[in-house]
């Protein structure tokens, strides 16, 4: 009996000690974790926009996240966008609800601190609180609007689509007329050496400069990549100047995507995925812009 | 027919066997001539056992047409005292005793066994040790032949009045053992345990081992005696049915025996001939019983467990000799064959004749001689000396040339599984061999190593030339419980 008492006592103490250690570690690291979590993503985003280590981004550049939600209530489904508000007060957000047909349904100010906006849990709670109890929301996706000096410069579109094996996660940058500026593969599980080559410059850079009209009917060609194009796509490796690259890019602007050898399915999934993301976004952003303009909701972009 | 197209390297030879069968099997000739398909069908319609078996080249043509030839008594005989399974005989004669042909010279004092008789008239010269194929040396009696003595003449007597016990005593007294196989005392076989009623007698005329033609000639030349012997056995056992199983490659024997059987059959004794498919080991007791009756003798049980008694045709002839003629068993028909001997023959020799005498009688050996085997090539023993005397169970002595034997080195098992197909007992020789090779013979019990009767089919077919029988014997020795 005494034995059991000692065991229980010592176990309790050790559990408490362990809890103490872990709790301390958690408290010390949680802030850094939050901070570092999106660092990589941000770096990718800026590099897509053309700002690398050598060429620092200008101070006037700003990123504005727009979160899209699907709202369900008695009337049925509608779509809602969480947009930041323009003005000095940085922590102001509005949830703009839009019907499936594009009609404005209402806007709800959301009380949310700026640090919390990128976290799913607090954001959902804040929106739910703003909308009232009879509406349920489901997070759909996010878009980042890039402004320079308050003027819209580009959109960053994170997205995912099914690849040959599992999902492929990408971030792409398009300009105001939805011409692709850049594409970066964030996560994938394609076969190494085959579909895994989608991360290579000579594949993903093919999307660069494709206009919206070209993109809409973009296909995949199962022919070998021409040599000059290959060099232009991987300009760093072959030491081409920007002008050379631009000249070659011009040449292939309206061409289909050249499939990776032996990985046509992966190439096609990426092409279709990119196509779908841009098309959907273009459709939605026009509706959102229209509504924002009609309702005179002041946004910083 | 699980083995229908198994060992196809031998297909050509099998085809010749078909032809042979077609040529002579008169009772099937009409159907056989009809079409090639029916030929195949016909072949397979011969009785056989379903599992395993091989068809080695028969090589019987060397002696099958040669009539049994008397070989006179040599100058000196060495009679091994233990010629049967059981306790060896104790001599009943003393040194320098004069013996007459057929005199008792040895008797079993205690245990299982049969008496031993003098094959010739002569004088006991020595009690010594003779070379023996299995046991290296074995105690024996040496008799110097009295070459002047006239051979004893035996006349048939009437046995119909004798009771089964009296008949049995005669069989025992004549020293009859199973001369086709291991030398099991015949009177024991003829007296099966009472709890297993026997209803069938099977005479084994399969003679499935290559080269050997002793039984074949016996059946051709002594068909009436064999049938009469069968009647004696049937009477002893008190049953009616007798099947004589003969492989289809001996059509003449089938014919002669059928006639003899038909002539001898009475309402009391129903004797019939069953042609068997040519397949080794057709003559093995268990396989023969399965071929003819479809009954399976359980492992480690005697045939009487399934109501069957099996005797070799030559043993039956010996029983005839013992009962009808009153002649003890001291002569043996031995096939001498192979490319290593000048003149192959089927010889009637006295028990105790040394191989060297036989070789001398047949004109010596040829230069190609590479291996001498007592018994058949599949289960016989290779011997290294010509001083070995013939025993009651010696059915052949083969003098094989280099091209008749196989001396290739063996390699690793390639898991072709041919041995599994060939094994008539459904064992896994490759597994046994692999275990023995890896030094784990004690684990081979689960593969049924003790059920193996070392017919040699597995080693015969093995393309890697692995000495599977050797491994199995090793396993049996090491894995003794």
């Amino acid at each position, binding site marked *: 009996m005494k034995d059991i008492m000692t*065991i229980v006592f010592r176990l309790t103490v050790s559990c408490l000690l362990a809890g103490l250690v872990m709790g301390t570690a958690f408290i010390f690291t949680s802030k850094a974790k939050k901070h570092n979590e999106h660092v990589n993503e941000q770096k990718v985003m800026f590099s897509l926009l053309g700002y690398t280590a050598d060429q620092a981004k200008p101070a006037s550049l700003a990123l504005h996240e727009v979160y899209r939600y699907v709202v369900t209530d008695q009337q049925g489904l509608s779509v809602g966008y969480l947009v930041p508000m323009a003005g000095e007060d940085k922590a102001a957000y509005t949830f703009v609800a839009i019907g499936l047909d594009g009609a404005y349904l209402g806007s709800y100010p959301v009380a949310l601190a700026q640090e919390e906006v990128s976290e799913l849990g607090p954001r959902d709670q804040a929106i739910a609180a703003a909308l009232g109890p009879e509406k349920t929301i489901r997070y759909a996706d996010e878009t980042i609007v890039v402004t320079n000096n308050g003027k819209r410069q580009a959109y960053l579109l994170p997205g995912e689509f099914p690849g040959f094996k599992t999902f492929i996660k990408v971030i792409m940058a398009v300009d105001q007329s939805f011409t692709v500026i850049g594409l970066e593969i964030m996560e994938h599980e394609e076969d*190494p050496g085959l579909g895994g080559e989608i991360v290579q410059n000579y594949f993903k850079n093919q999307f660069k400069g494709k206009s919206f009209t070209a993109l809409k009917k973009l296909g995949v060609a199962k022919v070998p990549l021409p040599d000059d194009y290959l060099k232009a796509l991987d300009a760093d490796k072959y030491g081409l100047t920007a002008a050379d690259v631009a000249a070659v890019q011009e040449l292939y602007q309206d061409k289909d995507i050249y499939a990776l050898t032996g990985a046509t399915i992966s190439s096609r999934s990426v092409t279709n995925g990119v196509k779908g993301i841009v098309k959907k976004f273009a459709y939605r952003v026009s509706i959102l812009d229209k509504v924002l303009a009609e309702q005179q909701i002041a946004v910083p972009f | 027919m699980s083995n229908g197209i198994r060992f196809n390297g031998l297909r050509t030879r099998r085809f010749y066997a078909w032809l042979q069968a077609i040529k002579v099997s008169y009772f099937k000739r009409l159907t056989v001539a009809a079409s090639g398909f029916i030929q195949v069908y016909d072949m397979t319609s011969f009785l056989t056992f379903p599992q395993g078996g091989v068809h080695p080249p028969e090589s019987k043509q060397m002696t099958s047409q040669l009539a049994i030839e008397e070989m006179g008594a040599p100058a000196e005989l060495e009679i091994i005292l233990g010629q049967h399974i059981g306790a060896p005989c104790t001599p009943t004669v003393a040194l320098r005793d004069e013996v007459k042909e057929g005199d008792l010279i040895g008797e079993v004092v205690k245990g299982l066994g049969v008496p031993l008789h003098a094959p010739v008239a002569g004088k006991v010269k020595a009690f010594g040790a003779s070379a023996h194929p299995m046991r290296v040396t074995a105690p024996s009696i040496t008799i110097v032949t009295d070459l002047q003595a006239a051979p004893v003449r035996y006349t048939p007597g009437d046995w119909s009045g004798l009771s089964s016990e009296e008949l049995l005593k005669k069989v025992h007294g004549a020293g009859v053992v199973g001369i086709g196989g291991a030398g099991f005392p015949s009177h024991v076989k003829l007296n099966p345990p009472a709890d297993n009623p026997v209803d069938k007698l099977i005479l084994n005329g399969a003679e499935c081992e290559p080269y050997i033609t002793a039984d074949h000639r016996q059946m051709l030349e002594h068909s009436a005696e064999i049938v009469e012997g069968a009647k004696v056995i049937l009477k002893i056992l008190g049953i009616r049915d007798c099947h004589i199983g003969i492989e289809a490659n001996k059509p003449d024997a089938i014919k002669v025996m059928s006639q003899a059987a038909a002539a001898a059959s009475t309402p009391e004794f129903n004797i019939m001939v069953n042609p068997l498919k040519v397949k080794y080991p057709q003559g093995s007791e268990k396989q023969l019983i399965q071929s003819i009756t479809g009954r399976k003798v359980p492992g480690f049980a005697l045939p009487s467990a399934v109501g069957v008694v099996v005797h070799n045709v030559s043993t039956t002839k010996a029983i005839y000799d013992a009962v009808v003629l009153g002649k003890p068993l001291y002569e043996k028909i031995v096939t001498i064959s192979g490319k290593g001997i000048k003149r192959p023959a089927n010889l009637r020799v006295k028990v105790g004749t040394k191989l060297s005498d036989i070789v001398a009688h047949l004109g010596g050996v040829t230069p190609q001689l590479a291996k001498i085997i007592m018994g058949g090539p599949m289960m016989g023993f290779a011997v290294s000396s010509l001083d070995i005397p013939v025993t009651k169970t010696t059915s052949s002595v083969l003098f094989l040339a280099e091209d008749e034997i196989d001396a290739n080195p063996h390699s690793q098992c390639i898991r072709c599984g041919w041995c599994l197909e060939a094994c008539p007992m459904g064992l896994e020789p490759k597994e046994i061999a692999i275990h023995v090779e890896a030094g784990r013979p004690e684990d081979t019990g689960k593969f049924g190593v003790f059920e193996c009767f070392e017919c040699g089919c597995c080693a015969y077919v093995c393309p890697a030339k692995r000495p599977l029988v050797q491994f199995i014997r090793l396993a049996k020795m090491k894995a003794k419980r």
Partner: protein
Amino acid sequence: MATDKSNLQLVVNGILNENPIFRLVLSMCPAVGISTTVMNGFMLGVAVLFVQVFSSCTIAVFKNKIHPRIRIPTYTLTIATWVTVIDLVLAAYLPEAYAKMGIFIKLIVAFAIITMRLEMFACKESVNASFWDGIGMGLGFMVGMMAIGFIRELLGLGTILGYDILGFKPLLFFVLPFAGFFCVGLMMAFFNWIEIVYKRSKQRA
């Protein structure tokens, strides 16, 4: 029953004689799973080193207080605690490396090597010896991982620590995950061979 080995001997013992990967054949999962580059091996090595050292020291400190009947649960709790700590730290400060190592950081908790050292060594020895033993074992693991990583990275990608050495990729095979099996197997055989040769030369001498 304190160990009679010096600190240095303890460390060397962990790296050579009782190398967790090649000699004790423990903790094989990461050795196969994520040893594709030297850097990966190094990172996981650091994590294991940390957990090993801290767990060993913790157990050595509290060795008299641990009731023998709840020995194993206590070890598990200790290891889990330190794994949690390193997991949190890596997730916070090195998110990229953390993402690469994926689930294996959390799985350090189930590494047999750590429990084994606690059971075999730390619960009997002084804090000092346990510390050095922990260092040795951790380094041994790290060295093993880096050695495998070295071969796989060099042959698979033609690089070492990300620097291009060969200028081309000789055999993609080696960076494929399952090549870890072949690499570890062949390396183990190599070390066995060295041992045999060493013993033979010793016998001759």
